[in-house]
């Protein structure tokens, strides 16, 4: 085959997929802002995404904070800059590690379960059944999950921030022998509202990405059990990659001067 032809085919396929995804996204958003709303489903999704992700996110955050304190100590003690540890920990957690690690962990948890659930509904004709029962599946299935994702991710990340900083505090005070009052004072002095806010905005975007990818891949899955498996994998992989890409873009927007 002509190599140009092959490149062209891949490029066209990429454009078609992007188009489908954007159409799906636009439809999901437009259904999320127009009635009827499904408060019961939104609430259930919020509990699923927010409350049940707390253990995963909390554990990730506490260890991230602890490792961060330990590693920056090894580095900074070489040129007697141990005092900056509190600063490094709190900025890294609130700006980057909180949103990104929580986002990736929840992408695994929620992205996969959404794709599997909606994908199974697709292959067992439950989505067709919704349509025949006067219910728009985009409105009933997709919109509530997008809303719940956007609403709950910032709250999760807020919790992750607090637990992450606490993890750093534990290591600094109990292992490295810092004065607790000084460490907390340092943490507080360095922290600005912008650090936390930028992290929360990132979280909302990541929440949107994770739920969108889960719903999109589930909704378009075909071919039985194997198709659902593929949808699950694609949802997690694409959500993770998009989180890292959009993290860079958002950081650039917030902090590039």
């Amino acid at each position: 085959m002509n190599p140009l032809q092959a490149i062209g085919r891949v490029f066209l396929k990429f454009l078609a997929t992007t188009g489908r995804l954007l159409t799906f996204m636009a439809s999901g958003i437009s259904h999320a802002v127009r009635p009827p709303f499904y408060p019961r489903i939104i609430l259930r999704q919020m509990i699923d995404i927010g409350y049940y992700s707390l253990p995963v996110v909390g554990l990730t955050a506490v260890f991230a904070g602890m490792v961060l304190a330990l590693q920056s100590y090894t580095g900074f003690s070489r040129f007697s800059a141990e005092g900056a540890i509190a600063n490094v920990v709190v900025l890294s957690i609130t700006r980057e590690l909180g949103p990104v690690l929580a986002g990736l962990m929840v992408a695994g948890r929620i992205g996969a379960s959404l794709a599997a659930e909606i994908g199974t509904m697709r292959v067992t004709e439950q989505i067709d059944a919704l349509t025949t029962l006067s219910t728009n599946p985009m409105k009933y299935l997709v919109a509530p999950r997008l809303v719940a994702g956007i609403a709950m991710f910032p709250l999760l990340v807020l919790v992750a921030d607090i637990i992450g900083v606490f993890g750093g505090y534990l290591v600094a005070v109990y292992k490295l022998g810092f004065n607790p009052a000084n460490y907390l004072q340092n943490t507080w002095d360095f922290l600005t509202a912008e650090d936390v806010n930028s992290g929360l905005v990132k979280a909302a975007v990541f929440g949107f990405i994770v739920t969108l990818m889960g719903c999109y891949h589930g909704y378009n899955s075909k071919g039985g059990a194997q198709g659902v498996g593929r949808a699950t994998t694609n949802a997690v992989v694409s959500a993770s990659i998009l989180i890292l890409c959009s993290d860079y873009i958002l950081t650039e927007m917030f902090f590039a001067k």
Partner: protein
Amino acid sequence: MNDQSNIQPKIQVRDVAKSFGRKVVLDGIDLDVGVGESVVIIGGSGTGKSVMLKSILGLLTPDRGSIKIDGQEVIGMSTADREDVNHQFGMLFQGAALFDSLPVWENVSFGLLAEKRCDRGEAKEIAIQKLAQVGMNADVADLMPAELSGGMQKRVGLARAIASDPKIIFFDEPTTGLDPIMADVINDLIVKVTREVGATALSITHDMASARKIANRIAMLYEGKIIWQGPVNDIDHSGNEHVDQFIHGRAEGPIQMSIRA
């Protein structure tokens, strides 16, 4: 065949075609279903029965042709108008397609709740009443669909299909995957509830016992076309080799099994 030239059919399908890629699935289908009639479409796997049903339901858009419900063209209709037309539909899916996150009663009254025809309290009462119509007692109302056997799920699916008193009920392979006794129970229920609701019925199946039981009229789909249709009593002397091969289930004959879906 009934003379329906001066009566408007409930469903009128004209020259409907649908292809997926290079594969032609429907190749100019014409079909009329009269008011209160029960038409069964028979045909082998992969002959486009499901595609045809989904086109009428609006789950798929045909490439060309016209589909009229009560004389009203539904192809190219706006989504909102289409939803209004779909209000008068009920559908029993092949695998029942119950929502496994909802208890049985909420499955049955899902359409009523979606159309806000009643509150949740009333909906449960109606659901129990509909379940009784398909021979299930009130105890199952609070079970989850996964706790039911395949035949029971089909019954719940049937109760859901008739819950909003539809004018047209579609049955997609209603007996597939059931043992012969349960299949017959479902066939009897289909005949009974369709009559009770006074609905028009369009079914697809490859189970001849089922087709003979529920049909007034049978149409056979082969290679994307309706090759024969007539009253159910004529099926044994249709004079069509394809039909004969199909109803007797012979491997030898003019019908070649297609390999690809």
